[in-house]
């Protein structure tokens, strides 16, 4: 009985609902001078009533087989206690309370909570249009136990190792807990979380630096920039390590670039230039030793082949584009055909279709031939001679015509066998030469056979190389 003063001061605060709150409410109603006794006994009564409602609500919660009280429970409790329900709180959208930052100038007010009322921007809401209807209630069935053994299927929780299991059971069933506690003891939920994390796919996040690099790179590559920048960008692509994470984005960017350039007919100079750059980028990527490109080949090839085989490339760039595309293709094949053996047959098939089928433009045919040249001598022989590509091209060419298509065929023929240094023309009167000429016509068709008449050695070489193979 020696220190009652201090104790009294301490216990003054024990009630949860403070008399200050009552006084605040009174002030808001215009009652200024509420005496302390009235306020404190009112506070006590309010607290009791709140407890009454909560106790009632907890019954509804229990019967609803839940472990959290919702506004619905409070509503029901108020109803059975004959109190007008509180309107406007629906259980689908529980209010979120937030704790205000402590006021520096009034430290003793204690924590202040308020309902977090989010401001809704109508423009944003209308734009996002994220209204999804919830799925209806559905059920699934699974075996929780088969003859006393819990099967290890995804529907069942993973088996818990024994020591963990013990820990779980150890942790606290609060004996005689007044309210049904939320069941999951801490350790169990953490175990579950870990499991979930393990099962989740590894999500790679592109670092800010790489994102920045990507935007800068793509910006500096495309035409309206000066060539020094572009060269630097290409050099960076060619040599820098650590771009693997960017590779899928780059490939996609390439594919989209090619598609847009070709879609508009690809007649303008700008398109041609951008196509050139894109091809440079492809070859740069191929040259970079640090990149693991195999998984992306199937995405890369359409871009190259489109450039190669497209019917109408800008005339000023056409030959150059097709040549460099063919070169890139040949590089790609030499690099990757060992690990990807079915690659060159498949490409060849594509090119042959482009070369032989009837309604293809000259540009496409030229591209296909250049592609075949790029693949190699064997492909040229198969495509031009056995597949009859030369005859098809020859039959389409007018007499005495020259042009990139004819050039490309001649290049291909050069690949089959090099032309002689000192050409010696075939003599129509000579018997042996006549046989050769007929053979040439059989194999290459009239148009290109005539082109070879001027060089006997070349013609014989070509014929022998064809015979050798077949």
């Amino acid at each position, binding site marked *: *009985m020696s220190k*009652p003063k201090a104790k*009294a001061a301490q*216990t003054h605060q*024990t*009630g949860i609902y403070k008399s200050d709150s009552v006084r605040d409410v009174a002030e808001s109603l215009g009652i200024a001078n509420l005496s302390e*006794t009235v306020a404190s*006994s009112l506070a*006590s*009564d309010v*607290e*009791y009533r709140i*407890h009454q409602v909560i*106790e009632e609500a907890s*019954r*509804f919660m*229990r*019967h*609803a*087989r839940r*472990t959290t009280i*919702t506004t*619905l429970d409070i509503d*029901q409790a108020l109803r*059975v206690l004959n109190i007008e329900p509180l309107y406007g709180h629906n*259980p*689908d959208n529980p209010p979120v309370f937030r704790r205000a930052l402590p006021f520096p100038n009034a430290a003793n007010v204690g924590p202040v909570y308020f309902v977090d009322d989010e401001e809704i921007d109508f423009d944003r809401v209308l734009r996002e249009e994220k209204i999804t209807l*919830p*799925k*209806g*209630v*559905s*059920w*699934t*069935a*699974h*075996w*929780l*136990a088969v*003859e*006393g*053994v819990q099967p290890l299927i995804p*529907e*069942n*929780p993973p088996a*818990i190792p024994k020591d963990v299991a*013990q820990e779980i*059971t150890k942790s*606290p*069933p*609060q*004996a*005689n*807990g*007044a*309210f*049904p*506690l939320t*069941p*999951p003891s801490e350790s169990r939920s953490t175990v579950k979380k870990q499991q979930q994390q393990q099962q989740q796919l590894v999500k790679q996040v592109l670092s800010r630096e790489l994102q920045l690099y990507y935007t800068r790179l793509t910006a500096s590559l495309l035409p309206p920039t000066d060539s020094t920048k572009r060269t630097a960008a290409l050099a960076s692509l060619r040599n820098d390590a650590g771009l693997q994470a960017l590779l899928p984005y780059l490939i996609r960017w390439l594919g989209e670039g090619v598609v847009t350039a070709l879609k508009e007919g690809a007649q303008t100079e700008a398109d041609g230039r951008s196509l050139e750059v894109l091809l440079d980028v492809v070859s740069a990527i191929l040259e970079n030793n640090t990149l693991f490109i195999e998984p992306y080949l199937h995405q890369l090839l359409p871009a190259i082949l489109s450039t190669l085989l497209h019917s109408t490339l800008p005339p000023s760039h056409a030959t150059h584009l097709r040549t460099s595309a063919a070169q890139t293709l040949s590089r790609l094949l030499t690099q990757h055909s060992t690990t990807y053996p079915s690659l060159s047959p498949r490409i060849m098939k594509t090119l042959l279709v482009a070369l032989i089928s009837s309604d293809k433009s000259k540009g496409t045919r030229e591209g296909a031939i250049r592609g075949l040249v790029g693949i190699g001598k064997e492909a040229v022989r198969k495509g031009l001679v056995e597949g009859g590509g030369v005859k098809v091209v020859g039959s389409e060419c007018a007499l005495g015509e020259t042009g990139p298509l004819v050039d490309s065929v001649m290049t291909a023929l050069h690949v089959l066998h090099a032309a002689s240094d000192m050409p010696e023309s075939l003599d129509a009167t000579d018997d042996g030469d006549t046989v050769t000429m007929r053979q040439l016509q059989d194999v290459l068709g009239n148009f290109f056979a005539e082109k070879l008449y001027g060089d006997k050695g070349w013609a014989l070489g070509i014929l022998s190389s064809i015979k050798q193979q077949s």
Partner: protein
Amino acid sequence: MSAATPAASSSGGVSPVNASAPDVTQNVSSIDRLVLEYLRSRGHKDAERALNESLESGGVDESGKTVSAEDLIKTLAVYAQKPSRPGDNVLKESANVLQELTAMGNPPSIQNLIASLGTVGAEEILSVDPTDKEEGFRELEAWVEGSLDMYKPEFRPILFPIFCHFHLDLVQRGFKEAALRFYGTYSPSLAPMHHATLHHLSTLLLPSHVQNDDDAQRFKNEKYVIRMSRSGFSLLVGWLTEGVGGEASGAGDGFSGEKGKRGRAAIMRVVNNHLRFDVTSASATAVSPNAWEESTGLLSQLIPQTSASATPNPHAFNASKGELKLGPAPISEELRAETERVIREQSVLDRDPNAQYDLQFLRPPAIPGVISPTESDMLPYPQSFKTVDVQREVEKVRDARKRIRLEPSALSSVDMNSVQGGAARARGLPSICAYTLHDVGEGAPCCTFSPDLTLMAAGFSESYIRLWSLKNEKLKGLRNDFSLSSVKDSGSLSKIQQKEGNTTRKLVGHSGPVYSLSFDPLGGSAAPPRYLLSASADATTRLWSLDTMTNVVAFRGHQNPVWDVQWSPMGIYFATASRDRTARLWSTDRTSCLRIYAGHLNDVDCVRFHPNSLYLATGSSDWTARLWDVQRGACVRVFIGHQGSLSTLAISPDGRYLASAGEDLAINLWDLGSGRRIKKMTGHTASVYSLSFSAESSMLVSGGADWTVRCWDVRGAGGPGKSRESGVTESPITRTIDDENNETSDLLATFPTKRTPITNVHFTPRNLCLVAGNFLAPDSR
């Protein structure tokens, strides 16, 4: 013994005085301060000190009472505690004490005082000082903790009622702060056992609350029964009167001091007025540790009063009600003959000679000691039987033959991890199929299976019921547009069936959360049910026809939400349990109820029929379960022992056991015949929502809010510890761990689910176990 305390009547007059007291003292103190300052300035040191002292002593007395009153208490206390005959005084009224005091011939001044006290009552004056309560309780706690170990479990239960009474007295007299302080100091040590009650009492803060609160009034008006052995009781009496025993002499000022005496007087008052000691001749050690649950508490109202038994003892009450007829219900001879005929015919058709032996299932062997009811005992049922009855009985026989036999007892003898363990596991434990509801918005309070497993129904917080066909058949109702005259036979009836249907169907009609559903059992496992009952928070019970898929009847009568509904095992009748503290019996052909079972002191939370439909078991929030005679409407058994509201019940198919689960997370198994508790099964870590017995009544399966399904051995001995699993000799450390996880040894298996509280557990007649629950998405609140 039952003298009403004068406190209750006069408290209204006391509180306003106290309320105004602080104001007075405040005024006084401001004046005093002025005087003090004056004295100090003049240099009167002695006078200042004297004034300070008197002020402080005034401050001590928080009630603001004058010193003379305090002196009076002290004087009185001395006399009140001077017993004329030691050991006898405890059980006497304070009025008697006063009389004795007058008779003893005290000085005339005291005599005058006593005479003047007549109207107010000495007790009140004795109890107005809040500090003596604290002091008294502290002494009592010290005494209990200081007593011999063998007496401790016996003495500990005394603390709780005395604590409650002290607290309530303080609140009632308006000493809010003192009450809060008292609660804060002493409740933690009591909290583990009495959390629920303590929390409820802590919410009472004003005298009017105590006046209006049911629990508080029960404490005031009822005797709190405490069971004690004779020797323990005499020790307690000795301590109360003489201050001997327990605390060593010399420790503190004990009972020699003035405060101690006043504290002891306060305890004695509570002991005299509000406690009743059930003194047993058994020695302290013989009482089982759980026994206090059954025999301690405010029992007098829980147990219906019979003229014969004056002392409220559940066992005496149960014994006075005589024997129960717990055997299986009789089958009428015609029905049995018809069923036998059908079974014989089918056995001929199937060329299955063994089917002849099935006939024995129709006449279950009588269990010795269990009386079977005769037909005259049964509820009135239609005289004739229908085809569906025969089908049901035939299917029952077939189920009995094809049943998976579960032998949980095989599990107890073998090591779980060995090869034999696996085999025993397969023989002892059931297969459990879990039905999980997804995307349940506000929650599904109930989910139930039809007896033939063709349908599943779930009731939702959003007031509707949803039916699913588990066989993926289309659920079709009847069209509305038809003329009655065109309906002549079943053929024309099927014509008006709806053309298209879905495998799921929504039944709308309630205006509050649906808390319970029950399919009619008439078809048994042979035919699909034709009716569904639902109970809801809108205080109605509704009958739904599954032929038309519409609501047929709304049964009104309960005043409050209906928590549970169940069909009687033979249809026609059903029972409901409600928040209005009653359970009711209804029949489908009347809209008003047939019987009201009143007696529970709080919500009736769950209701279950006995398999022979003669009895009805109810579980309540007053922590008891009761068994009622359905026809007479009388309570025939009361089951006391849970330490929290009951959440669910199950009666074993053989009719002998009742399993009940409560918010104390325990499952109790009761013997219906004697009303005694067989054992207490613990292990769940959250509320148990559903219980179900296997068909042979040898296994109990429970599901609950801790996302697990657990299997229990009904016949096992139970008891704490899991010596089987650890295997090694138990060190004291593992013992304590076992105590913490408190799984009793009859817990056979635990099957966790993924975030799915199990709301229903259902054993089919062939012992397949189905469980249902709604999946809680991890991000939901």
